């Protein structure tokens, strides 16, 4: 099964077929999600209209953690089974995850200022999210820091796995510490404590962000596979075999 998808040529064919679907689904989910979130959903009884930032803030934060988890799994598969597509999947996910983390922090500031009276606070949730952003940046810097790409992948894969300890810290930070950030309303024991009129746009935006991630991942992964092929051709030419 894994071998079947490990074949880069087969992956390229699969990605050609999936790309238009990911693009279409992203646009459709985002269109309905934005309409429901910005127009149909009611204002919050405590937070008023400012609650509408939630429809991008929460999906961005979920994706920041989702992308890092995906990277950690890909890095582990790459380290253990020397799987070239897994290595490239981790490398391709990093900039997307970094973008989502940045957006979660930025939209959080835009929500924090009117609700908490401050753009930023060194609270456990916010600080651990900032650490996640630096882990992404560290990975991107390290993976490109070596002349030999295989060494860059190996060193940065280890960084991702060590940094994974931060993911449960982020998730449970709102329970372990007394934070200004509110605790989970959707992913919690006993089911979501959020009204369907707000839950639906939130879930649709989360789906849009997920298909967007897959869309961009497929594009970047194909780009990386081709970059590898270029490297091999150049090396062959240097060694006079072309």
């Amino acid at each position, binding site marked *: 099964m894994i071998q079947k998808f490990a074949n880069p040529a087969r992956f*390229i064919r699969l990605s050609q077929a999936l790309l238009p679907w990911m693009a279409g689904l992203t646009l459709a989910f985002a269109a309905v999600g934005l309409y429901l979130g910005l127009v149909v959903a009611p204002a919050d009884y405590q937070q008023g*209209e*400012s609650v509408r*930032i939630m429809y991008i803030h929460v999906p961005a934060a979920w994706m920041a953690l989702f992308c890092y988890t995906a990277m950690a799994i890909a890095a582990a598969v790459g380290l253990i089974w020397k799987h070239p597509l897994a290595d490239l999947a981790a490398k391709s996910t990093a900039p997307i995850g970094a973008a989502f983390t940045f957006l979660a922090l*930025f939209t959080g500031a835009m929500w924090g200022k009117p609700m908490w009276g401050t753009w930023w606070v060194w609270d456990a949730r916010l600080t651990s999210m900032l650490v996640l952003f630096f882990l992404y940046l560290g990975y991107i810097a390290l993976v490109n820091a070596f002349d030999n790409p295989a060494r860059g992948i190996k060193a940065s894969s280890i960084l991702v796995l060590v940094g994974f300890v931060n993911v449960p810290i982020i998730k449970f930070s709102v329970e372990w510490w007394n934070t200004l950030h509110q605790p989970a309303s959707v992913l919690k024991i006993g089911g979501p404590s959020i009204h369907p009129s707000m839950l639906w746009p939130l879930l649709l935006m989360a789906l849009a962000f997920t298909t*967007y991630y897959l*869309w961009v991942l497929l594009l970047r992964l194909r*780009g990386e596979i*081709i970059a590898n092929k270029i490297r091999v*051709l150049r090396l062959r030419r240097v060694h006079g075999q072309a």
Partner: protein
Amino acid sequence: MESLAAFFDMGGYGVYIWPGYALTAVVMVGMLVASIRFLSSNEARLEALQAENGEPSDEA
């Protein structure tokens, strides 16, 4: 027109909400465009290399 103005005002929170949505759109569209360019520039380079080497070009 008045309801449209009210929509953009968002009960006074528009100044926080719209920059949040705008930057999200800019970053996500920018990442998408950069990834498409990364792919197509690599495709072009590979084709040029294969043409120089006299190899048959393929899509990967």
